[in-house]
């Protein structure tokens, strides 16, 4: 996963308003269950704002999974060995599967998948900005596994305890599979670091280009994150953006050392007093610019996605025509 969704408003969230007060009996029951850290299931009553927030977050999350297939899919035909190719195909297939788990979870809230896909394809709905950057060399594939999936795991683990049952269950499946993604990426980089100077330089270059983008994946600083507090109250979000970002940095610095790469931040250093690494300024203007659609690959990603969907139309039509024909044949035989 790659969700940054609690903090990134899109069209679907615009009408979202939390009505305070208006405490009906149902609402009181809902609030009591949330307060007791209970789970909400599809048939349970829930406030409209809770439902909308979830549809927005889960569908953005699902979109991120399937758009995330594109930068890596780009390298399937050029993987350096059959082994790496098989691994990469498995990983990209997993991302498609994660998208499906998540679309299914979102559908339980009453929004159809076609509607969600239409939102993605028209550019109304957002997906994680990290995929709007290009994958320029093979090391990028390793770095996506190590850092992008690493950041995603950090983000996703707390979502396994999300108050909405279907989302939490989908996340448990996703997290189990995501661990393979991170490890295969890190291992691919380890192999390159044992290679030539040129290969080591490729790894360092990929890390340089992706490090800051990965830190931005956790979303804006807590102070600029107005949706977060409501998400926390509802048990949709469990840990704040800044806290998750710090956890990711603290976990990644020793991994970078083992790998033998430098993280491109002169301000990155251990703070004994805090018991954490200090780090430099994230370029939020660049982040928002990409969210707004002006990153290096936004147009290409969306166009590829729409083309894939449209090119697959005949397959969907044929499957449906076949199913109808089979049904008619059955009816005729029974008669």
């Amino acid at each position, binding site marked *: 996963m790659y969700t940054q969704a609690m903090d990134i408003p899109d069209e679907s969230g615009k009408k979202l308003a939390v009505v305070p007060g208006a405490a009906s009996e149902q609402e009181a029951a809902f609030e009591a269950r949330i307060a007791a850290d209970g789970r909400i*299931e599809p048939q349970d009553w829930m406030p409209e704002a809770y439902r909308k927030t979830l549809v927005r977050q889960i569908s953005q999350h699902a979109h991120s999974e399937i758009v995330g297939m594109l930068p890596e899919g780009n390298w399937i035909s050029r993987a350096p060995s059959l082994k790496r190719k098989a691994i990469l195909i498995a990983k990209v297939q997993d991302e498609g599967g994660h998208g*499906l788990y998540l679309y299914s979870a979102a559908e339980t809230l009453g929004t159809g998948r076609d509607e969600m896909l239409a939102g993605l394809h028209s550019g109304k709905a957002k997906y994680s900005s990290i995929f709007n950057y290009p994958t320029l060399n093979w090391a990028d594939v390793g770095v996506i596994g190590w850092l992008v999936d690493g950041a995603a795991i950090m983000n996703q683990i707390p979502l396994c305890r999300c108050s909405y049952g279907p989302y939490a269950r*989908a996340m448990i499946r996703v997290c189990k599979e995501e661990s393979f993604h991170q490890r295969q990426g890190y291992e691919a980089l380890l192999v390159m670091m044992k290679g030539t100077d040129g290969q080591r330089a490729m790894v360092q270059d990929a890390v340089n280009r992706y490090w800051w983008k990965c830190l931005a994946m956790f979303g804006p600083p807590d102070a600029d994150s107005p949706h977060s507090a409501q998400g926390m109250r509802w048990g949709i979000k469990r840990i704040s953006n800044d806290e998750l970002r710090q956890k990711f940095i603290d976990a990644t610095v020793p991994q970078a050392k083992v790998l033998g790469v430098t993280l491109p931040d002169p301000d990155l250093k251990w703070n004994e007093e805090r018991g954490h690494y200090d780090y430099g300024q994230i370029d939020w203007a660049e982040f928002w610019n990409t969210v707004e659609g002006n990153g290096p690959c936004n147009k290409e990603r969306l166009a590829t996605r729409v083309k894939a969907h449209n090119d697959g139309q005949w397959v969907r*039509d044929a*499957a449906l025509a076949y199913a109808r024909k089979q049904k008619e044949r059955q009816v005729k035989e029974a008669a």
Partner: protein
Amino acid sequence: MSTAPALKDWPLWEVFVRSKQGLEHKHCGSLHAADAAQALHMARDVYTRRQEGVSIWVVPSVAITASNPDDKGELFDPAADKIYRHPTFYEIPEEVGHM
């Protein structure tokens, strides 16, 4: 983009997977498919990529009748005060041993 209705027309199926011979089929998610055979095929690709199952059931979601959450009290609360239905309700002298 095209707004062809195909995806909308693909019905929803619930997927149940038996993780191992001797265990029950357990609900693991849902998917859209044109017919039962395609639903099975897709369930295999989506839910058993890592040997999670030895058998799959797919059921049209519309075929499932679910209890209403509003009836929860009526349906399930009566069991709450029937603690005599549990073995721990009964005190048996220790010398009897395991029973």
